[in-house]
């Protein structure tokens, strides 16, 4: 898997251990940075057709397109609103491949997958809710998330831009690795989550919304 250059800004989400949350609302702010992976998204099938004498169509070749799964970087900043609720803003950067698989050529051309690499930026926000009933583990804090934001997809050569929106919901766990005051930090932890990602507009040859799985892992600090 190839890493894209450039660190994405980012921000959010913090969490704290279940034990700490249970006894103390904890610090107000959190920031984290990590990696994420977005799953494959089909973006539409389209046939190249010609018109026949009767007004019907004859297929010259078929195309089937998708955005390949890709890894990227992401970051978050969170603000604790209540004991269980955190508001987050987040940004991410990925470079998925757009692939157009060409097949079924009427003149037997070899099947080919044409590709390009897209730079995808997202900026958005959401909420993280620490689930009740965390007594099953004193160290891990399970949570649910939901949110959405703005999507920007830049094609190769930076000459064509597509924009859209995304929505996501999912859940995960976080845990504190280091607790207590160290310098200005109140704690350091890690977080992992999985999401369902729904994209509206952006690269979509058939105009519809696109759904895919997504996952992320990050390191966060509390301050």
């Amino acid at each position, binding site marked *: 898997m190839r890493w894209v250059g450039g660190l994405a800004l980012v921000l959010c989400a913090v969490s704290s251990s279940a034990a700490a949350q249970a006894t103390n609302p904890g610090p107000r702010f959190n920031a984290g940075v990590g990696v994420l992976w977005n799953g494959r998204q089909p973006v539409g099938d389209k046939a*190249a057709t010609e*018109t*026949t004498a009767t*007004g019907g*169509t004859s297929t010259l070749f078929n195309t089937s397109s998708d955005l390949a799964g890709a890894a990227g970087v992401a970051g978050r900043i969170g603000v604790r609103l209540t004991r269980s609720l955190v508001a987050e803003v987040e940004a991410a950067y990925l470079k998925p491949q757009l692939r157009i698989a*060409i097949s079924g050529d009427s003149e037997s*051309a070899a099947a080919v997958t044409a590709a*390009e690499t897209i730079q995808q930026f997202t900026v958005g926000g959401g909420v993280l809710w620490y689930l009740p009933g965390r007594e099953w583990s004193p160290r891990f804090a399970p949570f649910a998330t939901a949110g959405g934001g703005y999507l920007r997809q830049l094609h190769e050569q930076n000459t064509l831009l597509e924009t859209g929106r995304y929505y996501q919901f999912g859940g995960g766990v976080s845990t504190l690795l280091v607790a207590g005051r160290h310098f200005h930090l109140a704690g350091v932890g890690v977080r992992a989550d999985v999401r369902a990602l729904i994209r509206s507009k952006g690269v979509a040859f058939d105009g519809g919304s696109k759904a895919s799985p997504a996952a992320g892992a990050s390191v966060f600090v509390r301050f």
Partner: protein
Amino acid sequence: MRRPLALIVAAALVLGQSSPALAYLKFGVSIRGRQVTVKWSQTPVRYSVSNTGVPGVTAADFQDAVGRAFASWQAVPTASIAYQLAGVTSASPGSDDGVSVLGFRSRPDLDRVLASTNFLIDSSTGALVESDIFFNSAFPWSVASAGEAGKFDLESIALHEIGHFSGLGHSALGETELRTTGGRRVLSAEAVMCPIAFTSGSIASRTLKADDIAGVSDLYPDADFGTEGSVSGRVTKDGQPLFGAHVVAFNAATGQMVGGFTLNAQGQFSIGGLSPGLHVVRVEPLDDAELDSFFDGTRVVDIDFRVTFFDRVVVVPKGGDSGEIAVKVVRK
């Protein structure tokens, strides 16, 4: 001083005929060693219609059918050309009198020519001075709204010829097969300017396609055309430039196709009038029509290569070019 030079184009046929097209979609002539695009220098372009009918098509029917065909070209939103009916005339098409006339003529000797367009051009500028279209009354014609079995649809053929009348050459966006009796039969087409007409009874060519729209807009661009994009590149075989390859840009979102050709010794092509977006580029040999339907006989067109897709997605920007792409093809 004008020295008119007559060019003859035969199109919309059962069998493709020669046309001196030197550029994809557009006619060109060489003036003092310089390639010049043939087009009208002023619009609206005035035309007259003949007062002669044929069985099944009255003079009034004829005027209505060609009027609809002119209106289709004029309605292209990214083109600025306009046409104006000057009146009905008893003159026949083909007389070099400075008046553009459309009408029937009986030419049974041209047994595969449904219609033909003649030009008079200003030989110093390439500007069109006159353009006549004759429809061969040796064939049966129809203006029935749903078409008529055994008869050729006048509006469809007029739409093709008016493309020539406006300066467009042939498009190779069509698939054909050889007939056992000689000539070719068109199986499908995605351009009104395909050189071979559909069989009698068909009305499938009454609607302009993306390729036609790109062509006329390229010739007569209006302000909106500036937002369209283009693909340019080069085709080689065994490391050598390839002349006469048919290159098709397919918009992966809209499904629209626009074609062009490699037109110089460097094997370069440029396809304009594309909607901004992502395209697939397909290169094929020009083997679905007679070569002289596209190029004059002095050109050596290489058709010994396999159909090939470019292996990158081609990004066409708004109002700009993709940047040169390089397509390598291999021998059959």
